[in-house]
């Protein structure tokens, strides 16, 4: 095959995939705001995404906070700047590591689950069956998941932030023998409202992306068990990559020129 043709073909494929995803996204957003709403489904997804992800997110942020304190200590001790550790920990956790770590973990947990569930429903014709039972699959299956993801991720990240900062506190106070009261007051000293809120906005965007990508790949999977497996992998990989890229763009947006 002509290498130029191959490049052109790949590029055209890429553009059409982006176009399909864009149309899908618009359709999903439209269905999120138009009745009928399936509150029961939405609530169930909120419990699934929010409550059952707590242990994973809690453990991840706890150890992230702990290792952050430990690493900054080994670095900062070289130039007697240990007093900056509480600030470094709380800013890193609330601005970046809380939302990103939680986003990536939830992408693995929830994005995969959504893709596998919807993918199986697609290949066993359950999604077609929904349509013949006068129920719009976008409204019944996708909108509840996307709404739940967008609402629950900020809550998860808020809790994760607290646990992460607490992880740093544990290491500094019990391992590195900091004064507990000093640590807490130093943590608060340079923290701005914006540091936390920007992280929570990011979380909402990540929650949207995770559930959207899970739904997109699951909804369009084909070809039996192998197709569902592929959909699951694609959902997690694409959500993770988009999270990292969007994270950079959002950080630029929130803290431009500051």
């Amino acid at each position, binding site marked *: 095959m002509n290498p130029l043709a191959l490049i052109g073909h790949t590029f055209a494929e890429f553009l059409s995939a982006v176009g399909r995803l864009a149309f899908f996204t618009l359709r999903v957003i439209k269905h999120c705001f138009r009745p009928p709403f399936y509150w029961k489904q939405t609530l169930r997804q909120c419990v699934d995404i929010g409550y059952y992800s707590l242990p994973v997110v809690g453990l991840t942020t706890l150890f992230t906070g702990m290792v952050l304190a430990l690493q900054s200590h080994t670095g900062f001790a070289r130039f007697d700047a240990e007093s900056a550790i509480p600030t470094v920990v709380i800013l890193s956790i609330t601005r970046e590591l809380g939302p990103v770590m939680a986003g990536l973990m939830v992408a693995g947990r929830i994005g995969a689950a959504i893709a596998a569930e919807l993918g199986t429903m697609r290949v066993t014709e359950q999604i*077609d069956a929904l349509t013949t039972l006068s129920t719009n699959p976008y409204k019944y299956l996708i909108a509840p998941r996307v709404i739940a993801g967008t609402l629950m991720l900020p809550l998860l990240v808020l809790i994760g932030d607290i646990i992460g900062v607490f992880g740093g506190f544990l290491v500094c106070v019990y391992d590195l023998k900091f004064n507990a009261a000093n640590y807490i007051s130093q943590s608060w000293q340079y923290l701005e409202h914006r540091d936390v809120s920007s992280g929570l906005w990011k979380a909402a965007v990540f929650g949207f992306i995770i559930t959207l990508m899970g739904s997109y790949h699951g909804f369009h999977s084909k070809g039996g068990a192998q197709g569902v497996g592929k959909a699951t992998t694609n959902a997690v990989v694409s959500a993770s990559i988009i999270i990292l890229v969007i994270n950079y763009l959002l950080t630029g947006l929130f803290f431009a020129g500051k």
Partner: protein
Amino acid sequence: MTTVPKIELSGVTKSFDNKHVLRGLDLSIAAHESVVIIGGSGTGKSVMLKCILGLLRPESGSIKVDGEEVTKLRGRPRDAHQAKFGMLFQGSALFDSLPVWKNVAFKLIQAQGVKPKIAKERAIETLASVGLSPDIGDIYPSELSGGMQKRVALARAIASKPEIIFFDEPTTGLDPIMSDVINELVVKCVREVGATALSITHDMASARKIADRIAMLYEGRIIWQGRTKDIDHSGNPYVEQFINGRADGPIKMQVRRW
């Protein structure tokens, strides 16, 4: 006097990636009639059903239901069009996250707003009409045998008393006795509900039992149609090969699906 056919297809074409599945399909079905489409695997039987349902959009040709063109419907009118149908899927396509009675009552509860208590009563009545006891209602579809799942799927298809019912290979994968049970239930249910029925199958015993009229689909066109009793002397070599199940004849088996 001319009556409007319940379903009328003329010149319907549909292709996937340069593979022409339907190539100008014409078919007319009167109200309260039971028509069975026979044909080998991959001849476009399922695609035809999905086009009528509005799950797929044909490239050209017209599909009229109750005299109304349905291929270009969108939004509300499309929902109203789809609400006329009930469908029994090949693999049953029961929702495995819901107990049997909620499957049967799905359309009543989700789309018609019937109170769960009343819907459950109607689900149990419908289950009884397909020969299932009320205690089946509370178990999950995965705990049932294939034949029982088929019965539940049949109950779900007729529970909302649709005007038109589609049967996608109602007996595939069942033993001969269970096949006959399902065939009898199909005949009985269609008569009770007073629906127009369109079935696709390659099981001749089933076709003879269910059909008022049989049509044979081959290479995307109807190549023969007539009353059920005329099928044994159709004079059409394709039909004769098919109903007698001979490997040699004018029909060459496709190895690839598309």
